[in-house]
């Protein structure tokens, strides 16, 4: 289930992604690869072997592509070790079917975020030649 992304693109957290095509490009819709507990149905991200609530076995679960913004902020100073250049937006997105909220970058080509707005999970550029998952408005 690990993402295989061609084109020389280095993908941060590649094993967290479920690409919808063989070689997704920047801006293309993707899905996140989480896990679901066989016993209590709880969804966790990133993936783990054992459920933190009931210790049941966790199986891979692809998260819906669309979610809604539950919170957002902006990073204005360069954090140590980050490849992305500030300023950039970060959001936490709620996925209704899974009952989980996941933090990620906001795609810089989208509109200004607001609480409750719908987003799609996409591949976003972190730096030239480097990508990870993120969220785009609309």
């Amino acid at each position, binding site marked *: 289930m690990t993402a295989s992304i061609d084109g020389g693109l280095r993908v*941060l*957290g590649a094993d*967290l992604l479920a690409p919808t095509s063989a070689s997704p490009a920047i801006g293309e819709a993707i899905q996140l690869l989480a896990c679901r507990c066989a016993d209590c149905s*709880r969804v*966790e*991200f*990133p993936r783990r072997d054992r459920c*933190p*609530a009931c210790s049941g076995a966790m199986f891979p679960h692809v998260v819906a592509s669309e979610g809604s913004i*539950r*919170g*957002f*902020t*902006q*990073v*204005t*100073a360069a*954090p*140590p*070790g*980050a*490849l*992305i250049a*500030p300023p*950039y937006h*970060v959001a*936490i997105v*709620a*996925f209704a079917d899974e*009952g*989980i*909220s*996941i*933090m*990620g*970058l906001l795609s810089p080509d989208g509109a200004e975020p607001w*609480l409750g707005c719908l987003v799609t999970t996409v591949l976003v550029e*972190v730096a030239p030649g*480097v990508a*990870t998952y993120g969220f785009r408005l609309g």
Partner: protein
Amino acid sequence: MDRVAVAGVGIHPFGRFDRSYRQMGAIAADEAMAEAGLAYDELDFVVVANVGAEMAKGQNVLELLARPGIPVLNVEAACASSAGTLWMAAQMIEGGRAKAVLCIGVEKAPRGFIGAAGFEQWQIEAGLGVTPIYFALQAQELLEQTDATVEDLADVSVKNHGHAASNANAMYRAPVSREQVLASRQVCPPLTLLMLCAPNEGAAAVVLMADDEVERRGGDASVRLRSVRLVSRSPDDWFVPSPSFQTGSRTSLTARAAAEAFDEAGIGPDDLDLVECQDTDSGSELVAYRDLGLCKPGDEAALLRAGDTTLGGRIPVNVSGGLLSKGEPLGASGLGQLHELVLQLRGAAGPRQVDNARFGLAHVMGAGHNASVTILEGGVR
């Protein structure tokens, strides 16, 4: 818990210094030991909290002071590290395995964002390994779900800086205005630079002793540890460095630690006379009001606006200046809170003395999902 006495406290100011962490730790330790009237070879155990220094840090601090040949251990639980020392020491004394334990917290943190907070490499490279993001999202949620405003966030910082004016151990002692806080650089909106604490350097130390041992030696056993509780992550807690949470069922580490601590001490929030809480940022202090039971959910800003948490109010919070004014030497911050509570409970806090202080609470919370609540009682005879 009522047989563990705080026999001595010591502190090295919080700030930036041309001293090693070993020297700062030694200065705080010597002060606490002098207050307790103890020689190092009269201790049963030394336990040292530190996050970022080398191996065997406590042993290296002690090497500057004495070679008592007793067990020395180092504990780490991020910003809750020094609460871990109290937790260990209190249980050893309560269990009868120790009469006197020296707890030291010390840190010499680099400037800027706190690194190595447990983030995965992909989070760091993607720019998601940034602790203020978590505080900003929490603050935004508070503003959305309650009547709190950005002005209230600014006023927490104004209050704590006002308290720090008389605290010679604080890094930032100049008063700030609401306008200055709001106009300072945006770090992670809605949080500005002056709404966030700065990691820095410093040390604090506490000597815990069995009450009968203090009395046998003719010392002062009037300040007692009534509770110290330490909690880690439950399934639905959310904090640094986790990239996700369960949307509908998020729980609070702080609330759980507080409930356990009140239960152990046999008192409730209304019995408290003052609180030192983890004001990593202004929003965290307001959330702590609710989680520690100082107000109902939704009344956080009202408590602040009424002046209840200001010195002279019903339940003053962070009269030391808090982390917003003192800065946060990670391994030392919790014992720094104890230092302030002990001064207050002895009636020795000078211009920032809380009148008739009997019960004080200290709260820390750290990366990796750690929280601790400690309750002290003064004036015990």
